[in-house]
């Protein structure tokens, strides 16, 4: 798959910029692929293309036997529920004017054909699933903490019963302790629902914790790809080594302080 940005007058990207260049990967149901790379390496462009929010410039995106990159907008709408996305910053990915009930129930409303009662029941059920009480239903997004917001965002993505969940830096905006909670929640949900995750992050350690397979991106290309253990133990590519180094140095310095 290739994603380029043509130089448009009003869009502030360098003209003719190629964000993602000739990459290829696959994810099996119930497994997690982590896409790791430093900022600007093209990870989020991949997320947007796989979620069909932006069109890949060329290439194919196969999902359940169909090339979704080639579907028209109408056909795509039928596929969209299966491909859901959780964004990095829950502060602006939730409509600040709405209550949690409206936010989580909204995908059902958009898809239509579901009564208000059913919608509310499924909303409450989904909130419980992500670890929030029903008392949060009438709160607005602005009244929640970062971790709670991300839980709401996950509930909203899951209510359409997707097959693939694209997690675009979903932990980076959160505190360390909250990161662990949300990561555990994701593992739990994957086991219970058999979801496939495309987990996008710059944090190789977190990727190692969650992923079955890791792909390392650098400057729009996948430079290293394989099962998690193999990538961690046998990091040959300099980009992988530098990402690995960042976490190792972190760990060493923590150890040094302890001693």
């Amino acid at each position, binding site marked *: 798959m290739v994603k380029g940005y043509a130089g448009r007058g009003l869009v502030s990207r360098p003209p003719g910029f190629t964000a993602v260049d000739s990459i290829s990967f696959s994810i099996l149901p119930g497994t997690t692929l982590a896409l790791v790379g430093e900022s600007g390496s093209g990870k989020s462009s991949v997320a947007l293309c796989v979620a069909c929010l932006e069109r890949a410039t060329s290439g194919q995106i196969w999902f359940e036997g169909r090339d979704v990159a080639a579907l028209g907008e109408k056909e795509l709408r039928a596929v969209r529920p299966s491909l859901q996305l959780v964004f990095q910053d829950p502060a602006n990915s939730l409509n600040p*004017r709405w209550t949690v009930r409206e936010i989580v129930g909204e995908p059902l409303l*958009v898809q239509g054909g579901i009564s208000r009662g059913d919608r509310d029941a499924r909303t409450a059920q989904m909130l419980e699933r992500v670890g929030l009480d029903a008392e949060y239903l009438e709160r607005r997004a602005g009244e929640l903490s970062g971790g709670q917001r991300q839980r709401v965002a996950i509930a909203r993505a899951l209510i359409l019963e997707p097959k693939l969940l694209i997690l675009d830096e979903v932990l980076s905006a959160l505190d360390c302790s909250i990161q662990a909670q949300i990561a555990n929640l994701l593992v739990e949900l994957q086991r219970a629902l058999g979801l496939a995750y495309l987990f996008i992050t710059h944090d190789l350690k977190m990727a190692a914790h969650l992923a079955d397979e890791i792909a390392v991106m650098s400057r729009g290309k996948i430079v290293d790809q394989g099962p998690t253990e193999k990538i961690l133990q046998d990091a040959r590519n300099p980009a992988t080594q530098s990402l690995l180094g960042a976490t190792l140095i972190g760990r060493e310095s923590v150890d040094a302080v302890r001693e």
Partner: protein
Amino acid sequence: MIRFLLRRIAHAAFLLVGVSVLAFLFSTLAPGNYFDDMRLNPQISAERLNALRAEYQVDRPMVMRYARWARALLHGDLGFSFAYNTPVAPLLWTRARNTLLLTGTAMVLVWMLAVPLGVWSAERLGRPADVALSWATGVLLIVPDLALALGLLVLAVRSGWLPTGGMVSVGFEGFSAAHKIEDVASHIVLPVIVLVASALPVLLRHVRAAVAEALEAPFLRAATAHGISRMRLLYRYALPAAAHPLIALFGFSLGTLLSGSLLVEVVMSWPGLGPFLLEAILARDLYVVIGGVLLSTLFLVAGNFVADLLLYWADPRIRAEGTGR
């Protein structure tokens, strides 16, 4: 909510008093008054003039005159016009009604055009259609209203399609009701075009910018991922998210309903408030000027007030602040 309202009303009252004092002060500081020109008129004797001056009390100190005027205002009396020799209020009201007919029509049209066009343009930001529209509004923005008005008048004279000024034809009183409406409608076309052309580019650009910004918001991208339809995304999600600046602008357009069409009214001889006030200023018809200024201010204040109420209604976050949650 009550506190919010009271604060706004107190604010508005303060503003109105301030404007009335300033209007009074400035028109008093300006040299001369309505009767000074009469001195040069040989047909009016000095005694008659002095009697008039005494009757209208133009020689008393400003504070006393202001106090008298303000007390009368509380009873709905805006004072007396020197030139027309009648109370100001009915005079202003007839003129204001004509102005409101003109500006109200223009405002409805402007908003009906600006919102869909702005949304349409924001959706295809940077693509040829949007760029073309930006150029078109840019050109409209550059052409001065006066030039446009004069150009349209020339066109109307040459073609004879439309009347070239005024609000009604000769013999209007004798027309049937349907004919009356038709007659006013044909007169209103040209000034409305000028007003729409001058207001549309600015408003359209604001709608476009606000909606384009809202469309970038991740929660709208999330809605796209949920499979939302295009129209629903644009009008039920993006437009409300972009509503803040637009509501403020709506309040402003309400506020300028009385004062925004002065130039057009003068050029196209629309019998509205504009030419009337201009005449009154030149003749130093003090109470007419102050009444007009006050009425315009009242509209501005009321426009802002309506905008505040709309914001309050449209944004639950402001509502939550208001109830002290």
